[in-house]
């Protein structure tokens, strides 16, 4: 699937460009430029705002820099405020999302491969059950999960965030579609003739072909856990365990509660903290963006 995709993807635009080069539309480009401004201007504002002191935030125009650059003071204060709790939140987020995404992608790859390549009894029924659960909203599930976890004493632990994030029905669905085409049956047969066990065929032969699909699912769950707010909000009450989203929300409610005065300084920290928190994910997106496309098209086309 992706094999053909990559090929049409790279060959076609070249031909396309040739025939259409003379017909580039300035009107369309301008229209899209307006759209691009809409999407990037808020981020520009955030970048500008993070260079300002709280006073300058109020007294200078939002979309341009103030006279003095306060960025490094803001960054330093963001990382040192409350005994450096911000860095802790960042590391928590990193930890929760990497473990969740890694685990979810692995389970989805294993399961998707199993559903795609083995004709066991109940295959279709079980897969249908998982597929149907894509519609079950994660936040409607969060409160029931909280109730269950509090019954067994698991709330307010990292596991309370990680375990629910390990299930990705959409990931399983993508991996099944992906495995169907990416791992040829002849490869599995060849492995069997060589006397390899089913598990070692998966780990030694199939896993390599599955890698692009796995990375797509990895990115999906990484973003989902990184952005998660509802689940950690209800599961955790120890600020040392907060991910960055819950931490920033807590700071923002403190800064809003007090207005000016002692908590007013937090405003600049919320702004700077927000700005810093989105850099890693944006960088990851830009670096890994081609994987999004290949994996998503497998799901979109056949979905």
């Amino acid at each position, binding site marked *: 699937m992706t094999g053909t995709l990559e090929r049409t993807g790279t060959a076609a635009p070249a031909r396309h460009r040739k025939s259409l080069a003379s017909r580039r539309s300035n009107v369309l480009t301008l229209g899209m430029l307006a759209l691009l401004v809409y*999407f990037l201007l808020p981020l520009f504002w955030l970048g500008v705002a993070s260079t300002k002191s709280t006073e300058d935030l109020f007294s200078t125009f939002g979309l341009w820099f103030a006279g003095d650059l306060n960025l490094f003071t803001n960054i330093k204060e963001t990382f040192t405020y409350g005994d450096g709790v911000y860095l802790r939140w960042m590391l928590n987020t990193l930890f929760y999302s990497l473990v969740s995404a890694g685990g979810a992608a692995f389970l989805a790859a294993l399961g998707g491969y199993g*559903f795609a390549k083995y004709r066991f009894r109940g295959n279709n029924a079980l897969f249908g059950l998982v597929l149907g*659960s894509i*519609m079950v909203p994660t936040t409607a599930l969060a409160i*029931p999960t909280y109730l269950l976890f509090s019954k067994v004493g698991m709330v307010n632990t990292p596991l309370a965030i990680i375990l629910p994030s390990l*299930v990705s029905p959409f990931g399983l669905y993508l991996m099944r579609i992906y495995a169907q085409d990416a791992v040829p049956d002849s490869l599995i047969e060849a492995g*069997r003739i060589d006397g390899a066990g089913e598990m070692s065929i998966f780990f030694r032969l199939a896993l390599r072909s599955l890698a692009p699909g796995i990375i797509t699912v990895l990115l999906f769950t990484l973003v989902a856990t990184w952005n998660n707010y509802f689940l950690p909000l209800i599961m955790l009450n120890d600020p040392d365990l907060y991910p960055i989203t819950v931490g920033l929300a807590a700071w923002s409610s403190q800064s809003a509660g007090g207005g000016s005065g002692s908590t007013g300084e937090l405003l600049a920290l919320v702004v700077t903290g927000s700005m810093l928190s989105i850099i890693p994910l944006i960088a990851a*997106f830009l670096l890994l*963006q081609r994987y999004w496309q290949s994996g998503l098209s497998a799901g979109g086309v056949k979905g």
Partner: protein
Amino acid sequence: MNTHAKSGYLFVAPFLLVFAAMLVAPLAYAAYLSLFREQLIGGTVFAGFENYTRALQDDRLMDGVLRVARFFVIQVPLMLALSLASALAIDSGLLRFAKVFRLGIFIPYAVPAVVATLMWGYLYGPDFGPFAQLAGKLGLPAPPFLSDDWMLGSMANIVTWEFVGYNMIILYAALRAVPHDLYEAAAVDGAGAWRIAWSIKIPALRPALLLCLIFSVIGSFQLFAEPQLLQRLAPSVIDSGYTPNLYAYTLAFTGQEVNYAAAVSFLLGAVIVVASYTVLFVSGRRSRS
């Protein structure tokens, strides 16, 4: 195949195990809890479907459901139209710097809903939001983004900002998979870029659009971070029942009405599943006729 068939269970077992523990078990537990009622005297007693009949007559819950339904009807078509237009524009070959547009429009998806809402909250704000500043310079009153009348629209704007790029990438990826011979054949027949987009590309995008639509149903009905964070800026506009999810949260964690919250969560999940299948059914029927 038959001798190996059983090893299939080994592969799917880990996923299904976690699936059962993290998805089926909480739902079952919530269903169980929702059948009980807490009393000041006598503790928890079996209540049958009492929580559900209460939920169906609960005006605050119904207001919330209707509000997110209204949100869905207005915001989702707008968002998907923008996504579709961007995907088609980027794929058309008529655009200069297509890659810059593709990446730039997608970037907001990397911004967590919490950060997006805090940021837009500041942008909307009357104190140092640039809109209010600009209006002030022109001698106009600040636009009331956080007022009762504007709030749902302001929230729709945040969600649109967050998700146009995500939907665009799904649609764009699907467009890349359309065989390009089709375009060339059409071009030979004299079809222009607009005609090709309308007659070949959009029909080819049906399954991908459907996928986007389903994800949007699920997303709209479980709105939480946006209203919960904007509530602090406009406590008189956003009450605890503004969206069903916010209501369930308040019930469980402020009101300590665990059993009723379980029923509301369960009902909300059911509403979303029904809405998703309705979308599937309606679009499936339309494609057949």
